[in-house]
């Protein structure tokens, strides 16, 4: 962070303070996604149902919950990755800036350009570092200098300094944490609006995890970030809003579907959650 310069700190007026407080509340920010009564089934088996929530601009929203609660299924609805799973059906609405993401005339390719995704296990392509980051702009035929896009992506992912002298080397030679940042750089190179992260740090060591979390903090100034995490403390650290999902078991014990239990500011979820199930989960008594 050597580029930071000292600026004089001006005292905040009461109006500014009030603005900052209300900014922190998020609810009067623009909603990037509006989910209404969403359900997903795989060939008839319902994975998750009755989910309604809004994701706000320039925030980090976390989905937490026990395994099997459908949070990964849910996050994949935001960039239509569930389209690739045979037998997957989406019911309900997902609105992106007010437009139905699943309308017949919407091109999934365009959706995925705007809404990028980083996966749990880093999945760099078996190509050079440069070609990894350049892949997106190339397939999407984005205009502008490819070199600049690659550099910008790598800088934003805090990886540039480590790889700038070996861009032509294989991406597979990087460490796990570096590979994940490469995947983030790859995602950023196409200039998305939203970045989805499905357990981005769960395969990484603690130091790499911290770096990724710091990155999220930086990136949310320009992007909107949604993460799935099974690490509650991570959600507590990075997320502005947290949604807790749980598993609803049918009386006969067979049908298990995911449901949204509570969605609120992270501070509230971790100090005074409204639902007992949320309380039990975050205190570790269950789940």
């Amino acid at each position, binding site marked *: 962070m050597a580029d930071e310069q000292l600026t004089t700190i001006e005292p905040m007026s009461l109006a500014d303070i009030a603005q900052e407080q209300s900014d922190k509340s998020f609810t009067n920010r623009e909603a990037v996604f509006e989910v209404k009564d969403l359900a997903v089934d795989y060939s008839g088996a319902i994975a998750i149902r009755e989910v309604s929530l809004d994701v706000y601009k320039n925030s980090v929203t976390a989905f937490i919950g026990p395994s099997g609660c459908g949070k990964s299924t849910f996050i994949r609805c935001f960039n239509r990755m569930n389209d690739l799973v045979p037998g997957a059906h989406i019911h309900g609405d997902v609105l992106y800036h007010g437009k139905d993401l699943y309308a017949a005339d919407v091109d999934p390719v365009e959706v995925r350009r705007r809404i990028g995704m980083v996966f749990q296990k880093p999945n760099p392509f078996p190509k050079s570092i440069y070609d990894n980051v350049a892949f997106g702009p190339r397939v999407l035929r984005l205009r502008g200098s490819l070199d600049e896009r690659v550099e910008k992506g790598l800088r934003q992912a805090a990886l540039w300094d480590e790889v700038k002298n070996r861009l032509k080397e294989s991406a597979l030679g990087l460490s796990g944490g570096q590979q994940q940042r490469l995947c983030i750089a790859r995602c950023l190179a196409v200039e998305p609006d939203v970045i989805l992260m499905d357990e981005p740090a769960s395969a990484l060591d603690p130091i790499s995890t911290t770096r990724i979390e710091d990155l999220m903090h930086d990136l949310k100034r320009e992007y909107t970030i949604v993460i799935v995490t099974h690490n509650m403390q991570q959600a507590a650290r990075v997320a502005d809003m947290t949604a807790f999902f749980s598993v609803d078991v049918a009386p006969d014990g067979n049908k298990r579907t995911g449901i949204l239990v509570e969605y609120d500011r992270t501070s509230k979820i*971790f100090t005074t959650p409204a639902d007992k199930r949320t309380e039990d989960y975050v205190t570790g*008594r269950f789940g």
Partner: protein
Amino acid sequence: MARISFQEELDELELELRTEGELVLRSLRGAVEAVCSQDLELADEVIAFDDDVDAQYFEVEQGVELLLARQTPVASDLRLVLALLKDNLHLERMGDLCVTIAKLTKLTKGLPPDEVLLEGFKEMGERAEQMIRVALRSLQERDRVAAESLLELDELIDRANRRVVNRLLEIGHDLERREWGLRMILVSRCLERIGDHAVDVGEQTAYLVTGEFREFTDASR
């Protein structure tokens, strides 16, 4: 139930706090008895005994610190730990106030007492004792209603305090008893402060149960 060792640690910490409460009650009884009977030896015992209270205070404080560092409690667990931390302080302060009473008793050695005032102190001491018990029980049972009842009990102590002040004004012209009287105002004040601390413990209990912190009473009244 998961986090068994965590739950056990929490339970143990609460137990330590209750133990501290019992020690404070012992101090209080000793201090009030010393004043009322003008028992200087008892006063010395009370002063020495405060070391036990302080040791227990330190135990609880350490316990809270370790719990926060190792277990990262959230939600109701966090509120409990924070409540324990603050109650610990209140109890320790109560202990110190008992020591002050004992010291004042020693200072007034040989001075003629006023029976009416001593009666008043006895009553205030009983009230304070009752309040401490209610506060501790309401914490143990997470009883918000009981916690809120402390407000009324505090009102009784306050009235007793006012009666003491009035009595002192009555006897103020008597030069012999005036010095004793001035010192005794402080004793009264200490007992009244003990009552306030008990109310604060009740507030913590309410916070623990409801998640909202509300002062039971506005200090400006």
